[in-house]
């Protein structure tokens, strides 16, 4: 409360006619030389009025974007929550082993194609880079597969030599499993891997997203890990029906697991993107509103000042005549 009062005081001080040239809102917008000297009539109200108009338009746009994101979010959220049933059985069967140490790592980082959605893209890029550092070492190879335009732009800057491939325009149609599985198929055919690590933002609520890593092991790596025991060691307890060998079953299983986990990851990230965009647009509309308030104040004060000056001049002129 006290802070707010203080801030208001500060703003009033900034906007007081004594210091037009440093007024917070107007300084960035209007070249200071357009204001004349203190209290003079040459202060241009036109510039402030134009600025107010443009801020108002921006506010309208951000409000509309927030509405769009909010209405899309609800449908996507339901689908995302349903899609969690895809990976849960796999985790129950194979476990999740993020700490596994293998030679060929492929980091699949999922980002969005469009911007204006807060920090979710830089967050998954940051996690991917940290993962790269963790998994790289002598005789090891780590590659990136990047989904989304924004992640690519950030990765190109310092790790373009490790990028294996990138995929865009995934979200042109509403996401569906067929699309993601074709995509997963293309990734599997084009990279060699011992472990695939998918980095994405898991949707938690409209304002919170958790950067998450899902690990998918190649059939050989699963074999190796299951010999070492642990959760994967229990695989030998299962009886395999039909004429397939364990290796074949494991290969089918890995491929299917990858497409399912990728489907969920893409949905989760899309959902987080919408949530992040919603809150980002909400705060920018609020900021635009605050800016508009400040500009209105400046505008009115300037107008009042010029009226007062004119009145003073008329009165003093009249009194000089009569006196």
């Amino acid at each position: 409360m006290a802070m707010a009062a203080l801030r208001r005081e500060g703003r009033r001080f900034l906007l007081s006619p004594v210091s037009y040239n440093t007024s917070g809102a107007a300084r960035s917008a209007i070249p200071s030389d357009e204001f004349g000297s203190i209290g003079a009539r040459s202060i241009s109200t036109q510039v402030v009025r134009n600025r107010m108009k443009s801020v108002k338009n921006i506010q309208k746009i951000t409000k509309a974007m927030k509405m769009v994101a909010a209405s899309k979010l609800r449908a996507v959220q339901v689908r995302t929550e349903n899609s969690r049933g895809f990976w849960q059985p796999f985790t129950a069967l194979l476990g999740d082993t993020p700490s596994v140490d293998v030679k060929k790592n492929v980091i699949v980082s999922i980002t969005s194609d469009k911007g204006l959605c807060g920090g979710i893209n830089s967050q998954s890029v940051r996690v991917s880079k940290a993962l790269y550092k963790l998994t790289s070492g002598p005789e090891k190879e780590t590659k990136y597969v990047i989904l989304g335009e924004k992640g690519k732009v950030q990765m190109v800057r310092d790790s373009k030599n490790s990028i294996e491939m990138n995929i865009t325009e995934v979200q042109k149609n509403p996401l569906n499993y067929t699309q993601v599985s074709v995509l997963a198929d293309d990734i599997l055919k084009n990279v060699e891997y011992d472990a695939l690590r998918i980095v994405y933002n898991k949707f938690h609520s409209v304002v919170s997203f958790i950067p998450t890593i899902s690990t998918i092991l190649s059939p050989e790596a699963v074999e190796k890990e299951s010999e070492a025991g642990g959760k994967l060691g229990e695989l030998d307890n299962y009886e395999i029906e039909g004429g397939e060998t364990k290796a074949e079953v494991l290969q089918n299983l890995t491929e299917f697991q990858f497409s399912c986990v990728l489907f969920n990851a893409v949905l989760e990230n899309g959902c987080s993107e919408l949530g992040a965009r919603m809150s980002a647009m909400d705060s920018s509309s609020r900021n635009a509103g605050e800016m508009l308030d400040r500009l209105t104040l400046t505008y009115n004060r300037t107008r009042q000042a010029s009226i007062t000056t004119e009145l003073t001049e008329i009165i003093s002129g009249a009194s000089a005549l009569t006196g």
Partner: protein
Amino acid sequence: MASTTAAVPFWRAAGMTYITYSNICASLVRGCLKDPHRSEAAAREKVHFAISKWANGKPEKPSIRSDLLEQ
């Protein structure tokens, strides 16, 4: 059961992954639906994305995988 096990080498030998194989099967099942459901399910089959491989730190020309181009 016997037909399933016999089919395994088939699609694997043809260079398909399990994903491709299951997608073809899923597409067939969708084709068996009757009409109001069928067009609904067909909408869930649309594929569209652009993929580009990188060599020496440079992206190659993106190839677009899209239903419109495949048909």
